[in-house]
């Protein structure tokens, strides 16, 4: 090797080929803005391609609801946007309360969310039993949100990458960004193997590695890597329609059309350096026990596979999305804390607007990076 690097120049450089990066590339390309996305492995190799597939507004922090509402509208016409079926189905989402305190929390959320035009239907113990006969005992109440649903991340992530490409975005896989320099008015990125990329605008969509990418430019934005632990059963004959979740911490569970039950809860182990994670058997056993209490008939099935995915979690469990408080031309979108699959289609749309128009009609209040910048008003 002679160390010669190819050098590219573009308008917007995107680091990370998860859904966030690919959706940003897609929305920029649709507006005919040249962009180059650098992905260390393959698009969708991490959280975006292996997540649980839950698409819900219900239970989200209020600060996320404007973005989630916009995302939900995109999910409804996803097939037209990306040119393929990502298996999004509005099956509804059922959130379960185990005791009176959790039931009160459900009720409170329904009241607050109504202000954002998001609806939940409160269900009593009896209503739950009548409507969802496969449900286990011991739930004090439930909240049903008909607009929510589920999708297949194994298809959605590659569909976004393919759509971005066909709209004209340059997507380079197998390129790891290892250094970034400020070169006013823009940035120079160095990627391995052998690439230098010059861009006016930089989008950090590096998922669990977002904190590290920010640090390459001296910006300190906190997130820690986590590895949510997932399981899937062999097909079961009965039908669980909605996507299920708990009001408090706990498992989440859905049944896909072939009958398999996909569920998750707890954590596996993660090694950010080696870019690998692994499900934990002990976590899986605990999750199976809990899932069998929620859906007792699951006990008849066998679990055929477990996995984990690498995700970044911020101190307040909210993503970091928006312009850098210190550096013009730098935008962050990472740290989705376990619930960015649903949001990602809208994140790309909003980032494209911020980059090209300087503003977006969708509020990011409470999600912006400035909340972690020392001395800034938002950090207080």
């Amino acid at each position: 090797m002679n160390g010669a690097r190819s050098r590219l120049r573009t308008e917007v450089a995107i680091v990370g080929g998860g859904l966030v990066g690919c959706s940003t590339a897609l929305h920029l390309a649709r507006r005919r803005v040249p962009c180059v996305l650098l992905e260390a492995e393959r698009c969708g190799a991490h959280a975006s391609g292996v997540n649980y597939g839950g698409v819900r507004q219900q239970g989200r922090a209020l600060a996320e609801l404007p973005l989630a509402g916009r995302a939900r509208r995109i999910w409804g016409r996803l097939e037209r946007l990306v040119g393929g079926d990502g298996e999004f189905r509005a099956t509804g989402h059922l959130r379960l309360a185990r005791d009176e305190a959790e039931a009160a929390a459900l009720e409170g959320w329904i009241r607050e969310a109504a202000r954002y035009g998001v609806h939940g239907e409160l269900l009593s113990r009896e209503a739950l039993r009548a409507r969802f006969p496969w449900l286990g005992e011991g739930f004090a109440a439930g909240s049903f949100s008909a607009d929510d649903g589920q999708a297949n991340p194994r298809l959605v992530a590659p569909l976004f990458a393919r759509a971005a490409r066909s709209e004209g975005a340059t997507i380079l896989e197998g390129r790891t960004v290892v250094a970034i320099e400020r070169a006013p008015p823009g940035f120079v990125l160095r990627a391995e193997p052998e690439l230098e990329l010059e861009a006016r605008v930089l989008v950090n969509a590096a998922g669990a590695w977002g904190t590290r990418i920010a640090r390459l430019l001296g910006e300190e934005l906190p997130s820690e890597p986590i590895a949510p632990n997932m399981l899937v059963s062999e097909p079961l004959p009965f039908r669980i329609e909605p996507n299920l979740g708990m009001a408090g911490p706990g498992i989440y569970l859905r049944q896909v059309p072939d009958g398999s039950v996909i569920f998750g809860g707890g954590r596996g182990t993660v090694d950010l350096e080696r870019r690998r994670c692994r499900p934990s058997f002990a976590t899986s056993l605990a999750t199976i026990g809990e899932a069998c209490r929620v859906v007792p008939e699951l006990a008849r099935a066998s679990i055929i596979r477990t996995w984990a995915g690498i995700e970044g979690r911020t101190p307040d469990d909210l993503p970091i999305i928006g312009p850098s408080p210190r550096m013009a031309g730098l935008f962050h979108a990472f740290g989705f804390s376990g619930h960015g699959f649903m949001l990602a289609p809208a994140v790309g749309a909003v980032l494209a607007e911020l980059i090209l128009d300087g503003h977006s009609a969708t509020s990011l209040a409470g999600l912006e990076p400035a909340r972690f910048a020392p001395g800034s008003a938002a950090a207080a």
Partner: protein
Amino acid sequence: MSSDPLVVIVGAGPAGMAAARTLVEGGLRPLVLEKGPTPGGRLWQRPATVDFERRLPGHDPDRAERGVSDFLGIVDRIDWYPGTTVLDATRDRLWALGSDGVIDQTPWDALLVATGALDRVVPLPGWTLAGVYTLGGAQAALKVHGCAVGRRVAFLGTGPLLWLAAAQHLAAGAEVALVADTSHRLGALPALPDLLSDPQRLALGLACFRIVRRAGVPIRLGVRAAIVEGNETVRAISVESRGGRRHFTCDAVAMGFGLVPQTQLLDLLDVPFDLVPTSGLWLPRTDRSGRTPVPRVYAAGDGARVLGGDAARLSGERAALAILEDLGRPTDPERVARLERELARQERFARGLARAFPFPAELEARTDDDTVVCRCEGVTAGAIASAVRTFGRHDVNAVKALTRCGMGRCQGRLCGPAAARIAARAAGVPLGEAGRLRAQPPIEPLPARARCMVTEPNG
């Protein structure tokens, strides 16, 4: 003082049993986990009582008896858990499901994986019909249950097991409709020098061939294509060779194209794998001593490299000595040298076999679009090729994500190699670029109702 290191052996076939004995002689008390109810593995599977047992070629009941009773003679000096299926392995512990339906874990200081091999199948039209078995399945029916898998069984595949299984069926009085081998008789000639390295095994192979021929069973060599016919159950098989295409009536097909080592545990433990171009299989990196590049992890028997039963026993013994060596225990260098010489001879014989019975890569690569490749999920070759073209992905794990191929109960054990071949061909890239399906825990289905002995929440 500190207690002895805990050596765990997974699998009590010839390799695992030999290793256990060697470790006991070396002063250790290994823990042996075996999925089956009894020791012996595939080779020494024993029927309760079958009158034709003594007539089966290549099956030596006295030897099997001796091997197993030898092992049973040391069970009070090992910790022996039959009926125990290992589900997951990490660098410091194993998780297993016992015959009582209870899940337990054990730590380990050294781990010997001796999990054996499965028949390799090639997806062919009709191979998912009821009545199609693997060679191993057909052999087990004969040896354990004393019956053939059908009234008229056709044998299809390649390799010594094909002829052995057919000959055993004839010896047991079963009717054999056909023996169809994808290899050519001529292919055996250049292999002869290597095959002569083990005259006994060569003689057995030739004897099997003779038994089949003398019985007047139709034989087809150099088979290029095969279709299993029937609806729901097998009615016939049609094979194409130089002599043209012909139908043979049968009600069962036994199929096998060599063996695939069961390497899932080694994969979970991060042992690196290398592609063997001739067979198209990815095998764990081990040396003749059974050591892998991962410290304290060893592999022996068909679970590492398919060398046959004798070699399995030798490699189990050799790996046990490697474990003792690495633990700083005394071992006899001459014994080590002798074992390695013997193993080298077995490797040479295996090279000869690979030449005489090459894997029919073309047959696998040219799987019809309509043919089901993944029987668990019903994914066809056409669906694989179309996903490759639509998304520009040929990595077999990406293909799995896009098509569900390999996502079912068997976790791609059967279809993985074929899916990789079909993906590589559709993308026009060398086979190696399609990679291999990565193992994911649990490596066998885990019943959700299994109770767990462990109370601590994290591990």
